[in-house]
């Protein structure tokens, strides 16, 4: 007990200290990232930063949930969202840093137009200036790429090659859409027929729009290509003779018939280990019919040097009776962007609020403490309460309902089942022999249960419990084996 009191005292003191700026838990890393991103915005982007007040509106280290076998290597990334404000112009700039260097950047005007740092002859000129400044900033060698922009007409789709370097200029006039008049400059290095992306920079309506530099993140490994396209397809065809996928339980699908003339094989680079790229054949074998699970093709990855199949996966789609030929064209009609119902726009400026790092720290500490306390309290109180699906009968209609605690309320489930039986009137509270407060109560109760479940899952994730296993068991209905699922 003494320990608990002591722990909370420490948390409270930390919170107080953080409030007054005495403790900054992640201040160092954020400051470094901020400095990098700000230098990029001020020194590289073709934006007159002196005209703007630059505010960091959000800092994050993305950690996408682990959903199964495929994992993104999103570690070592930091994402900084800036708001650049001037009297007549608001621009958002989002910088994604990989191991401390700018890897992706995108920008867009959300009010007015972007104020450029100088007048450029055209977007090719702007791209050239951008690359020159970027080279100075990053020390990444762009000397081969820059001259390729000379005499390029950015309004035309063009390809320029220099040795094994290829520049593709893509012009899409999407004026009237959110994209505007898009022009992209993309450099790839072609080695043994495989294209490795180096850099891409894009402009919208003449202003900087996006940038990615794969050189920051990836290196090119062994570029050997020993396997031809035909050999790759042959290997794929052979491989799928023994391939099968699970429909459910012991029901496995195998023995595929391929429509060979539709087969597609592309030589593209992919990561084999670390961040090193190797060429591989991506082979898509289209099936002669839709197989169980809506599977229409098989996708295989084959290393171009060894010919080894390193993955094979069934590909499925979400509909039948829906092909380009029978789904028809869209019907042209209204063009103005007006809303007939015109609901009022309510302002919610949370994302525009400048963040005080000290406050972030205190909020984080406080929230963690609250969640931890809540879990402790609930866990102590209800650790032995099993997860039990609810069964009962609606008194008025004698219908058996079956619900779970993470779903809508039992009350709501019953209403659904009643509706399914022909009671299609959907204004539940007013149409059944009940009253609105009861409906509201059951709804809020369901929310509370969902909240509990989410808290538990977050907590379980933090302590390393396999969530995929948990979710599998949710649908299996044996959640009660987990004591933390309350």
């Amino acid at each position, binding site marked *: 007990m003494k320990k608990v009191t002591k722990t909370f005292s420490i948390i409270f003191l930390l919170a107080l200290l953080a409030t007054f700026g005495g403790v900054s838990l992640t201040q160092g890393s954020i400051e470094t990232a901020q400095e990098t991103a700000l230098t990029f915005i001020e020194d590289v982007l073709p934006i007159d930063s002196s005209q703007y007040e630059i505010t960091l509106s959000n800092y994050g280290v993305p950690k996408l949930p682990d959903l199964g076998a495929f994992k*993104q290597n999103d570690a070592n990334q930091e994402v900084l969202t800036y708001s650049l404000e001037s009297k007549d112009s608001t621009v958002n700039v989002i910088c994604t840093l990989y191991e401390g260097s700018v890897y992706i950047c995108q920008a867009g005007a959300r009010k007015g137009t972007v104020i450029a740092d100088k007048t450029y002859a055209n977007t090719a000129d702007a791209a050239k200036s951008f690359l020159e400044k970027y080279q100075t900033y990053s020390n990444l060698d762009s000397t081969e790429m820059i001259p390729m922009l000379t005499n390029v007409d950015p309004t035309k789709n063009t390809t320029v090659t220099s040795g094994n370097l290829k520049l593709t200029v893509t012009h899409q006039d999407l004026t009237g859409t959110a994209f505007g008049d898009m022009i992209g400059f993309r450099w790839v290095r072609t080695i043994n027929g495989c294209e490795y992306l180096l850099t891409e920079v894009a402009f919208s309506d003449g202003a900087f729009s996006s940038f990615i530099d794969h050189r920051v993140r990836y290196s090119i490994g062994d570029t050997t290509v020993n396997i031809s396209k035909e050999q790759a397809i042959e290997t794929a065809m052979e491989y799928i003779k023994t391939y099968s996928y699970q429909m459910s339980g012991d029901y496995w699908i195998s023995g595929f018939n391929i429509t060979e003339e539709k087969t597609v094989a592309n030589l593209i680079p992919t990561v084999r280990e670390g961040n090193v790229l190797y060429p591989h054949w991506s082979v898509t074998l289209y099936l002669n019919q839709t197989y169980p699970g809506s599977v229409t093709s098989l996708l295989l990855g084959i290393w171009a040097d060894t010919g080894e199949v390193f993955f094979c996966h069934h590909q499925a789609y979400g509909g039948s009776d829906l092909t380009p030929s029978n789904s028809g064209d869209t019907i042209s009609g209204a063009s103005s962007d007006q809303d007939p119902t015109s609901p009022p726009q309510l302002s919610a400026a949370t994302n525009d609020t400048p963040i005080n790092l000290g406050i972030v720290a205190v909020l984080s500490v406080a929230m963690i403490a609250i969640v931890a306390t809540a879990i402790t309290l609930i866990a102590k109180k209800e650790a032995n309460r099993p997860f039990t699906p609810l069964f009962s009968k609606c008194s008025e209609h004698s219908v058996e309902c079956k619900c779970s605690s993470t779903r809508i309320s039992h009350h709501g489930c019953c209403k659904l089942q009643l509706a399914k039986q022909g009671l299609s009137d959907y204004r539940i509270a007013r149409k059944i022999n009940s009253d609105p407060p009861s409906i509201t109560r059951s709804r809020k109760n369901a929310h509370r249960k969902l909240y509990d479940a989410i808290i538990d899952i977050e907590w379980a994730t933090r302590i390393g419990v396999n969530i995929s296993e948990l979710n599998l068991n949710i649908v299996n209905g044996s959640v009660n084996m987990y004591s933390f699922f309350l």
Partner: protein
Amino acid sequence: MKFKAVTIGALLLLTILVVSTVQSIGISTVSAYQGSGVFCPNRYIPEYPPGDTENEIVLSTQACYYIAYYLWEHYYPGTCYFMFGDPLWGQYSPVVPESYTIILDELEYYSDKVTVFSKGHCTPWGYNGQHYQLLCTFEPDAAKDSVHIWPGTDQGKCRFDFIWHCGTARSYPVPPPYYDPDGPYGMPFTFTHNVAMTKYGSSGPCVFLGWDWMSPQFENTIPQNQYWQWAQFAVAIFYYMHYDYWDLQYALNQLSLSIYGTYFSNSPLYNDLVVWGNMNMALYY
């Protein structure tokens, strides 16, 4: 008992601290409730496609669970519904056509604005094949655009809709009189009740995302980048919009750059994953 008193005391203290800190720094809060509904019908019909594999059902449920969580957290204390079908183990009630009607109607009843995500299958039906129906957990249940979606969204509050089913971006725009012998048609119109959304637009009060043709299953590998599955793509959109407060255009562009190494309009997604309406809308709108 003493433990309880101490912890409750600490909890209360910290809650007051958080509340007062939030107030003192003037973080803006939404003055109106926003609601959200996430539907994952799941469908296991091996002999009669479309249907899902067991893995697809588990993965979709997981992914939708995360999306529901992000929306719930973003809109707290707004109303949030998450409904998934369980065709294999039968532990939970199925998603039926009326699930859409009732839940959407309830969300509109209790919220000022509603965000919807649904993942599943879809087929055309009705007059001239221009109507669409979201297939539910069991055959032959399907939520028809004019029959089940339209009545549930009659208040026009479902202003952010991502319907991850086949062909849901089709049959839009709709010309006057906006209906045919089978009623109002097309998912973009029946979800939003808005006839003026432009393709990949940048203004207006609504946004609708759908697939022009076949929607990929969540367990599919993205062909151009086998380290990504569509489930992660779907979750990542809401992840970035929730945690980074990005609008839809930034979220889609970021994912396009990460997965394809190019911006959205230059990626294979363009004109396949169609956005009707305002791409500059974030989760708060």
